[in-house]
């Protein structure tokens, strides 16, 4: 589905592709820094202590989430500057791309990169021979990974929209809500492999974020109804 989003909405406009790749790049840098911190922490600690390792891992995850949001903010700042440049350059005085579109594309960029990093090794291994969950782990490993990744990609997209909107209108509570949601989703993944604990809340949050983003982008219940009714 994420790829579908990409193809249908982004691939047409070259500017969006650039913004997408830059968004992916920012996510990558944030990942790099957070793994650097985690790495240092691990090296500095005792490798034998299981609990400590797990604790460090959790710490790493939380820190990474915070860093991601920080980088989203940085990216927002960069895009603001870029929009001013584009407006100055364009012929009719208005930017060829609006900040909302940028928010959407940036969100997709973040999401795609995070999804790719989460899934791609799994997919590569899935091509080879083997049995899932042979050591007593869950048999649904691949499936749940796929679903979790998908929900995360969508969430990143919606968070992008919400985040940028919050920054635009200076509503700090929106930004805080995004950060908290992100933390919640990551935290819920700690419940794995009891998938109920992680997948269900994530999907619920995604639905909430989707509705919120939709409303913010100017949609409304009437629009939705009209769209659905017109089709059939």
């Amino acid at each position, binding site marked *: 589905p994420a790829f579908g989003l990409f193809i249908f909405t982004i691939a047409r406009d070259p*500017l969006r592709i650039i913004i997408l*790749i830059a968004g992916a790049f920012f996510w990558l840098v944030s990942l790099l820094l957070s793994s650097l911190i985690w790495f240092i922490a691990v090296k500095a600690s005792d490798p034998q202590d299981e609990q400590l390792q797990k604790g460090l891992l959790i710490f790493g995850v939380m820190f990474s989430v915070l860093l991601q949001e920080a980088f989203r903010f940085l990216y927002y700042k960069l895009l603001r500057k870029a929009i001013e440049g584009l407006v100055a350059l364009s012929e009719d005085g208005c930017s060829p791309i609006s900040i909302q579109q940028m928010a959407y594309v940036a969100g997709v960029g973040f999401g795609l990169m995070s999804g790719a990093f989460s899934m*791609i090794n799994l997919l590569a291994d899935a091509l080879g021979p083997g049995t899932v969950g042979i050591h007593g782990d869950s048999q649904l490993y691949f499936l749940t990974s796929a679903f979790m990744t998908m929900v995360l990609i969508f969430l990143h997209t919606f968070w992008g929209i919400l985040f940028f909107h919050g920054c635009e209108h200076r509503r700090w509570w929106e930004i805080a809500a995004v950060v908290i949601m992100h933390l919640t989703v*990551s935290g819920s993944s700690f419940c794995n492999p009891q998938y109920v604990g992680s997948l269900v809340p994530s999907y619920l949050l995604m639905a909430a974020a989707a509705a919120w983003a939709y409303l913010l982008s100017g949609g409304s219940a009437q629009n939705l109804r009209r769209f659905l009714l017109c089709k059939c």
Partner: protein
Amino acid sequence: MITFMNNSDSEEEPCNERTSLMSAESPPVPSYQDGLQASEAGEAQAHRKRRAGSSRGLNNIAGGEMSGSGVPVRESALENEEEELTLKYGAKHVIMLFVPVTLCMIVVVATIKSVRFYTEKNGQLIYTPFSEDTPSVGQRLLNSVLNTIIMISVIIVMTVFLVLLYKYRCYKFIHGWLILSSLMLLFLFTYIYLGEVLKTYNVAMDYPTLFIVIWNFGAVGMICIHWKGPLQLQQAYLIMISALMALVFIKYLPEWSAWVILGAISIYDLMAVLCPKGPLRMLVETAQERNEPIFPALIYSSAMMWTVGMAKPDTAARGQSQQTWDAAEDGREHLRSPSHAESQMSETRSPVPARPITSLEELEEEERGVKLGLGDFIFYSVLVGKAAATASGDWNTTLACFVAILIGLCLTLLLLAVFKKALPALPISITFGLIFYFSTDNLVRPFMDTLASHQLYI
């Protein structure tokens, strides 16, 4: 490396395909980095073509050098308009460059991942005589540095040789060299490549069929690259050639040497293009003085070419001039393989005399193209291919390098638009790529692995 220059007078711009052939030597294949670098440097060239100075435009390519950022030279009365339009097209041109670079990288990565031949160590090139199988780390490092020095000096020598040939107008020699190189590349390497792919997938193929396929492929390639042909086909051939070269490099360069060489080549590229006495810069300036298209070096052009039957020939001619080309591409490429021909896309496809464009509408009909040196393609692909081949984190590292290179390319194009002069395309991208490769491999991989094993998501 020889670049083939068409001796066209101002009025006429026949199709010139630029091809750079690598010096044909048999076994040790000269490495062809020059050309690559040249290409990169070339990318940086941007010359604005003024409407008034249209005489320059004829050879368009030379005239309309545009920096890789696809800033088209607009001959319009208003300079400002030119600037705006230029940057407006900027994004489109960036994408026009993204696509071929991505394609090349995909081909290389796919091959590396599936065909085992290219990751086996079967010897080294003569240009990297020091082996890396030494017991100690210091020794290995020393060997790789020595290898790099040898390689870079070979490239420098070939580059200077090429510049000299160009200066003294030994065009026939250059032409012959290029043709020989492209022949070798198209036939020999393709044969090896096909052989390995067929072996991997266990597909039986008899010699006559193979011969016919390779013959057709090579013949059409030669025609497309050196003469006329549909744009897309030429682009496809150039991409394939770059991928083949990159694969050869990945196979034959020992590990540490490859990374050091990549770094050293970026530095060399930077110096060769920006220093006043740099060979690439001299090349560009000489070509400009003579109002000739700068090297028919390895350049990938994404511009739409107008066909001969075009109703507005001057438009076409203009279009050509507006293409940006990479000066450096020419090529100082020494290929390891006997002849490595990288042809650039012919910038002037239509033999149309260039006449100054007088109306804005005509200008608008032109398609602006962006040129990037083939060397750039090759080195980007080498970086990503090496990441795919040797990184233990597999796809994450490859993906990270890929994004890093694309961002580097974006930044380079942006700088081109700002500076409007020749800039090397390699340094920024390769630096980003190297940083990301090493950091992803060592830092991110353990983190992601641990996360994945616990199925945590960030």
